């Protein structure tokens, strides 16, 4: 049985255009495929990953066009629905950014920052990205 790992993702939108995804969410999805048992907490600016309907146009430089620009909301949905990775979002970080619960993709779970230490205690490994 793999060790239960809680991943607190705070760094957000770092190189997502070049990588066409978030490198940490990608890493967790790939590790899950190898048998890892992950959960994700989005905090800080990373809570915005859970906002539905986001996306930036791909980069275009003359004849060169990016054809698969990142869609972070779809990547979060992929974690939840396809990988069965629980995704939590810190409520207070949503609130200070004016993001309503109804704006989030389905399946994300709200978590109060006050409850985070208790949640962390449920895991054998806690990683802060």
């Amino acid at each position, binding site marked *: 049985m793999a060790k239960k790992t809680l991943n607190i993702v705070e760094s957000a939108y770092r190189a997502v255009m070049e990588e066409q995804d978030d490198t940490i969410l990608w890493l967790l*999805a790939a590790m899950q495929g190898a048998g890892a048992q992950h959960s994700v907490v989005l905090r800080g600016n990373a809570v915005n990953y859970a906002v539905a309907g986001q996306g930036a146009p791909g980069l275009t430089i003359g004849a060169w066009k990016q054809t698969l620009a990142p869609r972070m909301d779809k990547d979060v949905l992929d974690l939840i629905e396809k990988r069965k990775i629980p995704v939590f979002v810190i409520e207070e970080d949503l609130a200070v950014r004016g993001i309503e619960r109804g704006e989030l993709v389905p399946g994300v779970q709200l978590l109060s920052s006050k409850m985070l230490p208790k949640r962390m205690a449920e895991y054998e490994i806690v990683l802060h990205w």
Partner: protein
Amino acid sequence: MSQKTFAVALMNPPYESENLTTAFRILAAMAQRGHKISVFTYEGASALAFAKQAPHPNPVHGKNLAEENHPTTKDQVAALLALAAKNGGKVDWVNCGMCVDERGVGEFVADTRRGSPADFHSFCEAADNVLAIPVK
């Protein structure tokens, strides 16, 4: 619109931040308007034009090589040079020599060259305006 000369310093390495996407959007806008652009790539940015960069498929995305069409900065550099030339401008893309030696990235895409901080000094002296996008 009259042709201007811009000097630009870049520092971020590929695949580490959004700074380069912003930089390439600005550079493309300059090239689209036919301006002359001098780019000095310093530290990690000296790998932007590294010729051995290769795209990859993405099993997590469920995409093969063609579907993923993974961006490489060497292709973006080449596209920038072509765009400038097409619109009557020119890009002088200089890779800091000591920086590429440190990183082993001394093989560049065509029409970019090895240089030194003296090149950036020259670029600044000749430029109508200078933009530095540093690592923060």
